[in-house]
């Protein structure tokens, strides 16, 4: 058989899952949708000695619109369920737009919203989206819980603040302010493949079309998704003119990302992609926010 042997736990409730994780400590690993973990196990690049399978925990799969206009998503909600949810589409169209770029339909049918964030792949869409939307993450462990912002959550490539006994149980996407819209842009060699560079921009405008809030996130060009500090510094309070956006794009590409070189493109080429993509996504987000 391809994967190395492991002990298997199939809890029915969150409480049972937390107990399993506490008992197992460093030898336990959570199995969510499995679309990244199982391929790694097939190659024996990952050899967890015990898996706690959340697929049997029905209470972790839900989409709950919150009273303030946000959306709470249970960690085991499948990507495709979020992608086609009418309330998600209405409240935050950027979510469905982003999910459409995750691998292929067969993967989105199994992959989970929370699983992808907890996996913290620097080239993955959902960790970047959670950062762009300023998501709040509910982390539970036996006898306790805490809220963590998306910014605090990811600490390195495939590394998060989660301890072995912790479980990410819910992702809350806070409501978007009026006149706020987003735009996703990426370049990849084929549809569904990893992006060579990608950006998600969220722009909020005031009633005189000046930028009230901007969150421009780059990913697949560094060790974690990157929230541009410069974009917020220079755009907030000002009109998002073509020149201002071009300045942000140039600065971000030069100073705020750290792409590597590989077979398919040099670091220099990928910086250039960042510049183009940041410009396009900010421009489109502004246009959409004005509508």
């Amino acid at each position, binding site marked *: 058989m*391809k994967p190395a042997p492991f*002990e298997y736990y199939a809890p029915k409730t969150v409480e049972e899952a937390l107990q399993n994780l506490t008992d197992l400590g460093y030898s336990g690993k959570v199995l969510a949708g499995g679309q990244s973990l199982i391929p790694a196990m097939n190659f024996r690049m990952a050899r967890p000695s015990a898996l706690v399978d959340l697929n049997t925990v029905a209470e972790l799969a839900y989409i709950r619109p919150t009273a303030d206009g946000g959306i709470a998503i249970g960690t085991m909600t499948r990507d495709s369920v979020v992608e086609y949810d009418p309330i998600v589409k209405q409240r935050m169209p950027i979510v469905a737009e982003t999910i459409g770029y995750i691998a292929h339909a067969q993967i989105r049918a199994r992959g989970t919203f929370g699983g992808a964030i907890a996996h913290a792949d620097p080239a993955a869409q959902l960790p970047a989206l959670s950062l762009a939307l300023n998501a709040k993450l509910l982390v539970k462990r036996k006898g306790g819980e805490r809220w963590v912002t998306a910014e605090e959550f990811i600490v390195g490539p495939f590394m998060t603040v989660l301890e072995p006994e912790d479980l990410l149980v819910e992702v809350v996407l806070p409501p978007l302010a009026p006149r706020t819209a987003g735009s996703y842009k990426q370049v990849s060699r084929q549809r569904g493949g990893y992006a060579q560079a990608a950006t998600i921009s969220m722009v909020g405008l005031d009633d005189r079309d000046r930028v009230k809030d901007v969150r421009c996130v780059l990913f697949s060009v560094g060790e974690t998704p990157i929230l541009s500090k410069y974009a917020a510094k220079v755009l907030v309070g000002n009109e998002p003119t073509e020149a201002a956006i071009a300045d942000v794009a140039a600065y971000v590409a030069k100073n705020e990302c750290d792409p590597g070189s590989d077979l398919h493109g040099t670091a220099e080429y990928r910086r250039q992609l960042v510049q183009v993509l940041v410009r396009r996504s900010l421009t489109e987000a502004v246009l959409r926010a004005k509508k």
Partner: protein
Amino acid sequence: MTQLVKINVTVNGVSYEREVEPRLLLSDFIRHDLKLTGTHVGCEHGLCGACTILFDGESVRSCIMFAVMADRHTIETVESLGTPDHLHPLQEAFMEKHALQCGFCTPGFLMTLVDYLGDNKNPTDEEIREAIDGNFCRCTGYENIVEAVRLAAKKMAAHS
């Protein structure tokens, strides 16, 4: 001592009860335990799409699921589509349009498309290409597959 887990899976309308090791992949369970060898395994890490099956009616990759995850779920494999005498309209279209050469990838394409065409009755060529973007074919160059899907959509509309 090897842990064994009892699972109950319905495959192509037949209910199976089996004991499996947790690390057994669903694709290998289907092929080796159930002897349903129509489901092919290519890359075995979720890239090529050859192992696509329907899991509770949705197309998924069986090589990146464990058999234990199918407990109390329903699966359809390519064997559920048609017989040599009574091909599914999608299979007929693949035959008529020469949408396969070696045929290795075909079960995966068929299971992807039977799900897709169920929800999308009249796709454009661009939508067809998007629908098959998770399946590799190394023989045809995809042109005849796209043609076959177009024909299949017409055939399926006529059947319904």
